[in-house]
């Protein structure tokens, strides 16, 4: 009977998260002009902004879903996809681009079977692109969890990824 299962705790966590979000909305006086700040906080609480969270915000603030969704999809720092445990950022700045950044990106896409902005189904990795991460001399560069990997060889990505569980 006493099987270990954490879905119960997950439900409680989710409830807590919505309570916190509710508090945030209150703190911002439910003002539509504060929507962007509220969305920022919501993303901080949930890690991402799935439709369910957006709808909650709409209900609470009496805003149309199309408007909230419009704002979320306009700004690239909002994401409707859950984040992976590790965030891979492929540099496509000029230096990296000319020295194979694109190849690295394509190889990663193939390996992880996801597109830019997406997360692997096991939530291990999220894939993003960046414009210059300050390692131009050692291009192409990739940052994983903000740690920069230099002179990345598109044929040896597996080794690099295996360091991250």
């Amino acid at each position, binding site marked *: 009977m006493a099987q270990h299962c954490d879905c119960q705790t997950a439900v409680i966590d989710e409830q807590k998260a919505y309570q916190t979000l509710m508090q945030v909305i209150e703190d911002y006086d439910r003002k539509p002009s504060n929507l962007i700040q509220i969305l920022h906080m919501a993303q901080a609480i949930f890690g991402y902004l799935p439709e369910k969270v957006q709808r909650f915000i709409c209900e609470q603030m009496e805003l149309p*879903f199309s408007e909230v969704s*419009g704002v979320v*999809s306009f700004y690239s720092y909002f994401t409707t996809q859950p984040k992976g445990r590790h965030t891979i950022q492929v540099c496509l700045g000029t230096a990296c681009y000319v020295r194979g950044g694109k190849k690295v990106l394509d190889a990663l896409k193939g390996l992880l079977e996801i597109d830019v902005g997406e997360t692997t189904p096991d939530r291990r990795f999220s894939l993003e692109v960046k414009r210059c991460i300050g390692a131009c001399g050692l291009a192409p560069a990739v940052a994983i969890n903000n740690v920069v990997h230099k002179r990345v060889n598109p044929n040896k990505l597996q080794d690099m990824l295996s360091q991250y569980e």
Partner: protein
Amino acid sequence: MFTMTINQQQVTAREGETILEVAKRNHIQIPTLCHLEGIHQIGACRICVVEVEGAKSLMASCVTPATSGMVVRTHTPKVRKARKVLYELMLSDHPTDCLHCARSHDCEFRQLGEVLQVDVSRFAGQRSKNLVDTSSAAIVRDNNKCILCRRCVSVCNEIQGVGALNAQNRGFGTSISPGGDLLLGSAVCAACGQCTLVCPVNALKEKDATKMVWDALADPELTVVVQTAPAVRAALGEPFGMPPGSLVTGKMAAALRRMGFDAVFDTNFTADLTILEEGYELLGRLAAGALANGAVTREQLDTLNLPGHLPQPVLPMITSCSPGWIKYAEHFYSPYLDHLSSCKSPHMMLGALTKTWYAQKQGIDPKRLFVVSVMPCTAKKYEVTRPEMTTDGIANVDAVLTTRELAQMIREAGIDFTHLPDELFDSPMGLSTGAADIFGVTGGVMEAALRTVYEVVTGRELPFEQLHVQPIVGLERIKTASFQFADVKPEWSFLEGVTARIAVTSGLAGAAHLLDEIAAGQSPYVFIEVMGCPGGCISGGGQPRPVNDDVRRKRLEAIYREDEGKPIRKSHENPDILTLYSEFLGSPGGHVAHNLLHTHYTVRSRT
């Protein structure tokens, strides 16, 4: 007043005018695309650019205020080239389907191409959008054709206060949609169709019913019955080149007969019926209130011709003949649905009667009857799909055509509309009073109801000149009036001295205002009329384009002309309605009437 120069010409401008407005008044035509006067003025497309002396870049004339001494050039080579490039860029992301596109005759994008003399598109490229959303029962969105002008966004958010459409994503990925993966059919869309009136291209339109109707007409097994709403006759002439405000009641009946409909009925007939049902419902609510606080006895009420079961005394009562308004209320004001009259909209009543009373009279199997409603409205396409709009499992109405669709069918049938003779509607559901005509305009249902309610209670005519409740006539968003029941008939003594305040609104943003008052417990009204479209059905989402306040006013005048020209102007004096009650329905709100003519509402999510 100050002066400025446009194209070497000295012109005077008024404070607050844009360059575009000054130019227009002085007969200088600057092409525009996204601009829609009074509704959408955000400068999205930049087609209207002009050269302003001293300015570094070209200026969008529709949003740039005119200033004293300004020197403007509207058609220099630089300006013309800029417009062409902008147009070509838009064209590169647009299908060139004009030959088989339903909007080609009045497509503003195609017409603009002509004005700008664009002959090639040099920027052929990837297409950004490909979604055709047919999920809604009323509106089809073809995102391929969308030029991102955002007029629909302005109308849906600001005029209607619904917000079912907004811009999503950014840059090349931008699209107009309900957001996320949501389709319009599951969004909060009221189905009002106001967005289809303003869309310059074929990106927003009604869902086609013409094929279904042609098929029914061709089916020898079916008896096909048609009915036309009050507002259709005041606009159907326009697609045939007649000026706005032309009344084409007789030609319309003639055209329908030539198209092969077996009976041509008038929704006006059941508009009169609605007045009796809704009027007595209001009186029932007032009586129930009086009974609850002891102002009247059961015995006295029994002497009145009120519905057998008194309704709940919930006031204000709100009209229910606009299905766009109903859907909106169900989404956004669901705790207050008991304020809505339980009456079905008039065309649903006519459908229900056709398949019962008329079927019995004619000895036709109701399953072999096909009812078509011609409506100024897109929301009625949605309304007929509601599960409660059936009687014994048979749909009350089978298909809804918009005024635009009917015009298209008349053309397709090769009928020379303007040369048709005037014909009459068919009996027994063709005769109507002036009260029914004014259902087509904002304030009309209220006025029609008051003409009957006041007379039932006092035995005298409604004390307004020409029977027009002047304060509620016109295009203002919210209109109010009040009157007093004085010298009432003895059996209505509990209403003696009661002052009735009423409010009328059209367009859903106005409705929101009145509903917020109800929610706050501060509504002073007993009766509210809401029509979902600004101006009422005359500018419903299914009416011929273009619609603006000028066109609205002309159609409105036509409707009042029709009313004043009728020998009978009060619903309760329509002899055919009285026959219907004595032959079939019994009394207003009685058992049969309740089953066939009344409905209930559904709570819906606000997202």
